[in-house]
């Protein structure tokens, strides 16, 4: 696979805090793919994604985003990426529209383009009645939707989401999943961590299982089943078996 067809390539990505969080991780995500990264707590999922988004500096390794060396040219890499964390970081004193105007301005998007896009996004996420309200009174789910709209308003080619469905009710979660599905169909690449294995099972083209900072298995659900000699198990059973194996090996 060359750099042209891969949205993201990680090679030997390593990060150590008190202990090794990410251990020489190699990972390739194809352009236009919906990739779910799953793993137990403390496996290194968020640390990996934060390094990709430019929020953490790796100790070693490389990060390549659509052929751009993200460590040497972070500004160019960030131009095509969007990051959404599980804890929506928005401004309490801004309205959703003002927030999206700010995000679009940061990414240098023409106001004529971003304004209609912002409105469409907020309406599709069910925020139309709250367009002119300050975010200070919003529930966590509403805040998460505003943050997600912020990530999409500059039309990124790679969307990185860390537990994006945390705190969302069933209807909102469906909205978000629908929106992400639309983006993937339009050619966007999505990489997402989640603890909700059912979501990974239903939405992801491929699933990566990470444990102790290393990728222990990767593939479509069928491939994962085949690799582990199970034909009719759920992702949850597979996940538990893989993580258990890794723990025993360690």
């Amino acid at each position, binding site marked *: 696979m060359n750099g042209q067809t891969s949205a993201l390539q990680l090679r030997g990505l390593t990060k150590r805090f008190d202990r090794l969080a990410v251990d020489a991780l190699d990972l390739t995500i194809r352009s236009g793919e919906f990739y779910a990264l799953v793993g137990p707590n403390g496996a290194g999922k968020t640390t990996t994604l934060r390094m990709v*988004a*430019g*929020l953490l500096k790796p100790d070693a390794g490389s990060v390549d985003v659509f052929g751009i060396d993200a460590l040497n040219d*972070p*500004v*160019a890499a*960030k*131009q095509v*990426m*969007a*990051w959404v*964390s599980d804890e929506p*970081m*928005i*401004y*309490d*004193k*801004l*309205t959703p*529209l*003002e927030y999206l*105007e*700010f*995000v*679009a*301005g*940061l*990414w*240098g998007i*023409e*106001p004529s383009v*971003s*304004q209609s896009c*912002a409105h469409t996004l907020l309406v599709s996420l069910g925020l139309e009645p*709250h*367009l*002119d*309200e*300050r*975010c*200070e*009174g*919003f529930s966590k789910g509403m805040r998460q939707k505003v*943050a997600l709209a*912020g990530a999409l308003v500059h039309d990124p080619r790679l969307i990185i989401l860390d537990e994006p469905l945390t705190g969302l009710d069933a209807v909102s979660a469906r909205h978000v999943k629908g929106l992400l599905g639309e983006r993937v169909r339009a050619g966007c690449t999505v990489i997402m961590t989640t603890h909700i294995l059912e979501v990974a099972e239903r939405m992801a083209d491929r699933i990566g299982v990470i444990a102790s900072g290393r990728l222990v298995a990767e593939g479509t659900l069928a491939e994962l089943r085949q690799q582990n000699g199970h034909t009719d198990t759920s992702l949850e059973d597979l996940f538990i078996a893989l993580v258990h194996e890794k723990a025993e090996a360690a």
Partner: protein
Amino acid sequence: MSSATALSWFARHELRLAWREWLAMMTGGRRRRTRAAVIGLVIFAALMHLPAWAVIGRYAGLQAPLDKTSLIVMTSTVFLAWALMLSQAIESVTRVFYARADLDLIMSSPAKLANVFSVRIAAIALTVTAMALLLSTPFVDVLVLGGGARWLSAFGVVTAVGLSAAAFAIAITIVLFRLIGPARTRLIAQILAAVIGAGFVIALQIAAILSYGTLSRFAVLTSDAATAYAPGADSLLWWPAHALLGDSQALLLLLSMGLVLLGVVMAIFSPRFADTAISASAHAASSRQGKGARAFRSGSRQQALRRKEFLLLGRDPWLVSQTLMQLLYLVPPALFLWRSFSDSSAALVLISPVIVMAAGQLAGGLAWLTISGEDAADLVATAPLSPSHVTRAKIEVVMISIGVIFAPLVAALVFLEPLQAMITAAGVAIAAASATAIQLWFRVQAKRSQFRRRQTSSRIATFAEAFSSIGWAATSALVLVVPIAAVVSALMTIAIVAATWKFSPRRE
């Protein structure tokens, strides 16, 4: 559990919360620092005896009966202390309504809310009084050492003043809730707290400028006019002064009045405290309507960042109250300036340090809000903008804000003393730049709402910011009167800023 046991249990809980909050403020939330904080506090208290001696030492020998001028000065000092405590108490009460995370738990419990909130009111009064006693200790010590044990009654006066200030603060805040609703009370209470703290001194200064052409507030207090208008020596108004001098009858009366006031407030407002708290939390859950939709604006990425910062600064209740307070502090020098147009005075020099000091302090607060208080740090960090561009845009916001606030004063000074105006402008710019640099070197990722705790994150930064503002203020005044001394003052201030940089975690 009996009602009395439940009350004492809740009182213990409140005191423990107050103690831990105070300890967290002293230690910056790090438990390992407790010992260092205690040692630091003891050293600070010991050192405070020196300025206390300088300010109050000469009054230790005062004996009853006092002349009217002394009575006026002493009573005004007690009133000033009361105003400052009232300001702190209003802040505490607002915090209880808006920031305590346990209101839901308390209100959903089967406890009698009037009793629970009576304890909470008492805890506020106790906290305010304890803090005032702590701060007044060096001053009372100096008076006791110089004038004898009779001055110990000053602790009683401070207690009475603290109790009545807490009672007034609770009444004012709840009345505000009733009159203007929870949405506006938070902002208005913060502004009130700021204005009350500074208001009395500023009012005296204004009166001094208008009547005597001086910035000294003592000019009014010691004037013949004040003596002529003051009531007779047996007036109730002088009881705080009599109590300070050791009059036990006056002291008992003051303490009783403080306790009765607090009791009345508890009896009247405790049952309403719950309703008020519910309104406040309901307000927290609702949204404020912004302005209607308007067209997105074009511009560079830095412009987008600057626009966002200006918008947030304009909507920050803390900043509104602090700016108002800084502007209030600038009223006396501005008035002085206005008077000097017709009557040129050498004392005009005093204006420059006041302006420079205010600019440094305000810039420090603004810099913390824009640089450290970034609510969406991840968003800005993942934007296609280099960190240096982000920092530059934020610094520009601070410097532009300072320019806008202080330019009118400097412009007015140009017409009177062009050289002094130039020096003041330079002082404002340097003091603001120094305070901003210190905040940049000591920046931490925090929420804007954590502003109240900004001073606990780094004591070095807090003191350095204050000393740098004082240093540049002194330098700007000295340039005008003793230029060679200004060089020494400037070098000392540069040394302070350089040493701060040396000790900073981010030497960039």
